[in-house]
């Protein structure tokens, strides 16, 4: 949801010569700490890992690259058709159900890809309800008919597309709505029909925004572990796991991670570039009520159907299936163990969200006080984690923490003759640190967008009335930012709740979260049993979706006002 942060309407507050103290060096140190995992992974590019890497390069590396590229191609196709098509229909046309789809199309965002993968496997497998009823209906037997295999690369691409198209939908929708209607009208008066206008004018104008949305979806695709692992598709993320746990080679796993980071970096650059261009593609700022093209008859029905498909398959069916499974085992599933699991997952997510918010405030406000080049660069580095796959971060956290543990242990043994064992690795501290690296950007962007709307004169008014910068933050900014701060908390909270690969690697022994529990049960093919945990994650995931759809409804009210 990083894409919704509005640019600041005010220039950065000027640094004051008096804002000395610990802010500057503190921020740089903090940013470096948060960048540590990525730096470690990149650093391993220069460490020879010998045979393991050679072995990987000879055997599976080509597969990883091919599969990752194919997956990205599939997701590109799926999210473009689904995202751009629905965005165009809901923003430019009028048909029954349009108002509903406008926000309902966001619902699949609440579904983590691995959860949708579990439900469709349960639905479409040989023993699932669909094939069973098909056999009952036709009398076919095992092997006597062809049925698409869910657990395949294509299946994974479909699953990912179903939950990731909202990124493209959101950004292209905003672009379509921001386009000067005059431009579209001009095209119509020049004799182009609606289809021609769409392809020759609207689509090219919205292209930067669409590309930005697509790169976000592709970053998520590269970061996915749960789906591809479950479907047995060998990609980078599964490869990193195998190299680490199967082959036991940290350097090789780190090097694979670095290659994956290279892919991500390309996407980041594409996204940044497109976003910058998108800004210049708003040809006019005129506020004008949109005259939506009215669809009737079969056209209206087709539009309805086109918008229904992603909502139905991306949310309604899997959510219904989860609810059904959860209901069938409700009597035994919701025991004290389950509620204990929910409770400490929530506590972990809430604690992490609070920490992330705190750090985001320090970084965002520090940057406001001190927009020196070093500070600005540090804050940007601290915010890069959102693009880095959880698997990569996990490796990047594990390696330095293990090294630190060994160092402390050796020193303690040498000095006091006591072995401290693993102090940091495998603790909640390591896990929370990884979460912060990955999700701080989410909080930071929300906080910075909020801070950007506070005029610099507010800071100065507080200072001239006798308050130090920290006091001004507490007494002026925080009360004014309450809404943004809550949003930031909520976004990080839900992201932590959904996170799978980093949690799998870094969680303390015997410590589970809802996501890990769902993953474990699904891996044991106990799909129905994983429903209560999965459903809880989906319900929590609905919260930010509601926030988003509310802001959409509000802007729509503003449109028609």
């Amino acid at each position, binding site marked *: 949801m990083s894409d919704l942060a509005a640019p600041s309407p005010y220039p950065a507050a000027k640094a*004051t010569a008096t804002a000395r103290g610990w802010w500057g060096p503190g921020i740089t140190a903090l940013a470096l700490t948060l960048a540590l995992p990525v730096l470690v992974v990149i650093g391993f590019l220069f460490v020879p890992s010998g045979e393991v890497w050679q072995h990987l390069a000879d055997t599976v590396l080509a597969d990883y690259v091919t599969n990752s590229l194919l997956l990205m191609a599939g997701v590109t196709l799926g999210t473009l058709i689904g995202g751009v098509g629905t965005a165009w229909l809901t923003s430019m046309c009028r048909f029954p159900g349009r108002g509903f789809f406008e926000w309902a199309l966001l619902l699949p965002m609440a579904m983590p890809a691995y959860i949708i993968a579990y439900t469709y496997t349960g639905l479409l497998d040989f023993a699932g309800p669909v094939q069973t009823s098909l056999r009952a209906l036709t009398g076919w037997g095992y092997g006597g008919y062809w049925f698409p295999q869910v657990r395949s690369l294509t299946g994974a691409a479909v699953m990912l597309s179903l939950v990731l198209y909202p990124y493209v939908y959101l950004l292209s929708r905003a672009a379509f709505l921001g386009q000067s209607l005059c431009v579209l009208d001009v095209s119509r008066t020049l004799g182009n029909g609606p289809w021609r206008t769409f392809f020759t004018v609207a689509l090219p104008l919205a292209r930067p925004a669409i590309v930005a949305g697509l790169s976000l979806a592709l970053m998520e695709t590269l970061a996915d572990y749960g789906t591809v692992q479950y479907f047995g598709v060998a990609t980078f993320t599964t490869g990193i796991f195998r190299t680490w746990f199967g082959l036991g080679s940290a350097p090789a796993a780190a090097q694979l991670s670095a290659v994956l980071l290279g892919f991500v970096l390309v996407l980041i650059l594409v996204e940044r570039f497109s976003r910058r261009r998108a800004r210049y593609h708003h040809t006019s700022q005129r506020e004008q009520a949109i005259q939506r093209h009215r669809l009737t008859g079969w056209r209206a029905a087709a539009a309805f159907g086109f918008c229904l498909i992603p909502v139905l398959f991306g949310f309604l069916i899997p959510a219904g299936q989860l609810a059904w499974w959860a209901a069938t085992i409700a009597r035994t599933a919701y025991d004290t163990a389950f509620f204990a699991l929910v409770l400490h997952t929530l506590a972990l997510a809430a604690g992490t969200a609070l920490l992330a918010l705190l750090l985001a405030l320090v970084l965002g406000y520090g940057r406001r006080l001190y927009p020196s080049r070093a500070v600005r660069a540090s804050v940007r580095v601290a915010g890069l984690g959102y693009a880095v796959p959880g698997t990569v971060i996990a490796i990047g956290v594990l390696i330095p923490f293990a090294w630190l543990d060994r160092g402390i242990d050796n020193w303690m043994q040498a000095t006091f003759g006591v072995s401290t064992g693993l102090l940091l690795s495998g603790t909640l501290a390591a896990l929370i640190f990884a979460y912060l690296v990955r999700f701080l950007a989410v909080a930071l962007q929300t906080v910075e967008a909020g801070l950007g709307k506070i005029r610099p004169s507010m800071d*100065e008014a507080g200072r*001239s*009335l006798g308050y*130090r910068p920290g006091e001004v933050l507490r007494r002026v900014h925080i009360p004014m930012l309450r809404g943004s701060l809550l949003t930031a908390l909520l976004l990080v909270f839900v992201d932590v709740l959904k996170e799978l690969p980093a949690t799998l690697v870094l969680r303390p022994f015997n410590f589970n979260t809802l996501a890990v529990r769902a993953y474990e049960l699904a891996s044991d093919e106990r799909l129905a049993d994983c429903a209560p945990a999965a459903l809880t994650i989906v319900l929590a995931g609905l919260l930010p979706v509601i926030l988003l759809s509310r802001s959409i409804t509000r802007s729509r009210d503003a449109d028609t006002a």
Partner: protein
Amino acid sequence: MPIQLEVRAVTVAYGGNPVVAEVSFVLVEGTIGCLLGPSGCGKTTLLRAIAGFEPVTAGEIWLHGRRVSAPGQTLAPEQRRVGMVFQDFALFPHLTVAGNIGFGLRGASRAGRRARVGELLELVGMADAAQRYPHQLSGGMQQRVALARAMAPRPEVLLLDEPFSSMDTELREGLAREVRELLKRDGITAILVTHDQLEAFAMADQIAVLGGGRVHQWGTGFGLYHEPADRFVADFIGQGVLLTGTVVDDLRVKTELGRVAGTRPHGLPQGQAVEVLIRPDDMLYDESSPRRATVVGRAFRGAEYLYTLKLGSGTQVLCLVPSHHQHALGDDIGVRLEADHLVVFPV
């Protein structure tokens, strides 16, 4: 009267580029000073340096006997005891009017704070609105709250950064006078920054005209208008044109419109070619005058017309005439020059 604020040869530069260059002035307690100049003249930068938001590159700033700014040493704004009224008022939207006014009263007892807030609410006439929020107030009311908030902690000096610029033009002068009375009643030392000379005249005791980062003249409004120190001030303050002439003696200059006499010697040698500042109010309409001029432009000002007149040599001058005398473009009218002050600049 003790000196409250002293600015000593202050320079503020960004990357070697001076925005304020060697500015010096002194403000004694209870006076209202003004930094007047066109946009980009450095007046706001200087104000921010006094407030402690900008470091000085050279020179010193002293506040109530304490050195607060010197190169490499900038006392934090929160430790300076300066009050500031911002161009956009910067009222805290999450606090009520009373909350805003009481914000800077840290360390005061609850009763003490309430008493001071009540006093200021009374002073600015906002007692009825104490519990309202800034967004519920009109611009003028917001401004009074901003003023009260800045005055509440009894600052050593009150800084006003273009405080009337968001107001309607008709209201500005009245508000400026109103604010002046409030400040005078409390004996507050203040500095106003503005580009509007009428505002400056209405409010300030002493005005510094800034241009290109330096002070061109420091004086009263009357002095700036009638005895500008240089061409920049002559041009920036009021209207007028420069008419060429020749020095007759130490008090008189000969021009196309006759001789102009001053009261103070200008010190230029006889026969020196000069330019004389002619204000529109120095030109009188007089049908009986033998000197004629052609009307080439006119602007209706309500009580007066401001005519642009072309003299025989082709030079144009401005002339203010009561509006019941109407002349059409192209009319030939009689004019007479009657100036009390002689302002000459050598060519």
